[in-house]
């Protein structure tokens, strides 16, 4: 009676159980954040009322890089079979036309902000056509190589004229840098990858 009673400690042994329960709940309901992707923009739909009218856009042959992927996942670039590992270099050469060749797109010198006089191939088009039987991985790899070609060119230009990498420029919060990036992406090396209107070749995976 005379003894001083100690304040009882709260029993914390169930704390572990509670924490485990929470842990398991989160493990089950969540997934690792891996949502990265290749961003692309689709063209607007064709007007429905004039479906039959074939588009009569004349593009000079030298301005087109025609890429075909067949159902065996083989590549054909401008009529010649090609390995996917060489596509990036081919695309880069096509976009820049470094030697002002007659075979490659028309080049003209324009003056843009921040970059000064640059030679651009305004009217080049990379046309991509795939079969219904092409596998997705190959299709995406082709898209990836093309985007990579543009990104590498932009990066080279960035390093040469602004002495910073494209990554830094894209990440920069500065208004001026954003402007520079826009000029680079829209005027110097605009991305022109066009996908042909799909045609059906009959059976799935066939042809």
């Amino acid at each position, binding site marked *: 009676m005379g003894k001083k009673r100690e304040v009882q400690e709260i029993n914390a042994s169930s704390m*572990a159980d509670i924490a485990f329960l929470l*842990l398991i709940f989160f493990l089950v309901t*969540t997934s690792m954040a891996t949502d990265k*992707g*290749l961003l692309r923009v689709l063209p*607007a739909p064709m007007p429905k009322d004039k479906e039959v009218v074939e588009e009569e856009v004349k593009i000079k042959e030298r301005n087109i890089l025609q890429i075909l992927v067949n159902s065996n996942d083989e590549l054909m670039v401008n009529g010649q079979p090609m390995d996917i590992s060489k596509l990036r270099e081919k695309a880069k050469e096509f976009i820049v036309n470094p030697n002002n060749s007659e075979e490659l797109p028309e080049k003209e010198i324009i003056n843009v902000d921040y970059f000064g006089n640059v030679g651009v191939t305004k009217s080049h088009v990379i046309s991509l056509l795939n079969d*219904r039987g092409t596998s997705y991985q190959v299709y*995406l790899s082709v898209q990836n190589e093309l985007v990579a070609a543009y990104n590498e060119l932009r990066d080279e230009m960035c390093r040469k004229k602004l002495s910073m990498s494209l990554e830094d420029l894209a990440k920069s919060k500065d208004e001026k840098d954003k402007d520079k990036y826009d000029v680079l992406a829209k005027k110097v090396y605009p991305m022109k990858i066009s996908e042909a209107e799909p045609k059906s070749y009959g059976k799935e995976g066939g042809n």
Partner: protein
Amino acid sequence: MAKFRKGGGRKLGAISTASLPDIVFMLLFFFMTTTTMKEVTLKVDQKMPEATELTKMEKKSLVKYLYIGTPKREFKKAFGTGSRIQLDDAFANDPSEVEEYISRQRSTMKEADQGQMIVSLKIDKDTKMGIITDVKQALRNAYALKISYTATQKVNNY
């Protein structure tokens, strides 16, 4: 003798588990921060393709998801083994259903965000392009033009 008994009678003290909650909480916070809530329960098997030029999805609220792959084992009997589209928690019967799904998704978004909607296509890497082309056409018709092909980062070795 007494000494012997004394030694044998001594019990090992229980290992203190007082730090166990701390350890588990640490794990808990780790998983809470590194993971995200699953959007839906996947009904299709998926292996993401590989690519290098990837962009991270910044604003989750702008991203809507669409899954394509072969049905998981428990659904194979009912839905077959061909590639199927999963919208929310159900299989779509036809690629044209995507159009309606997108407009439904769009109406749930804030008006200011509607134009910035990004459709993330989570597609198994072995899928044939046929079904994907159909889906892309449906997306075009629904004016969901910004798309992202979800992929995993490939380690560049050349």
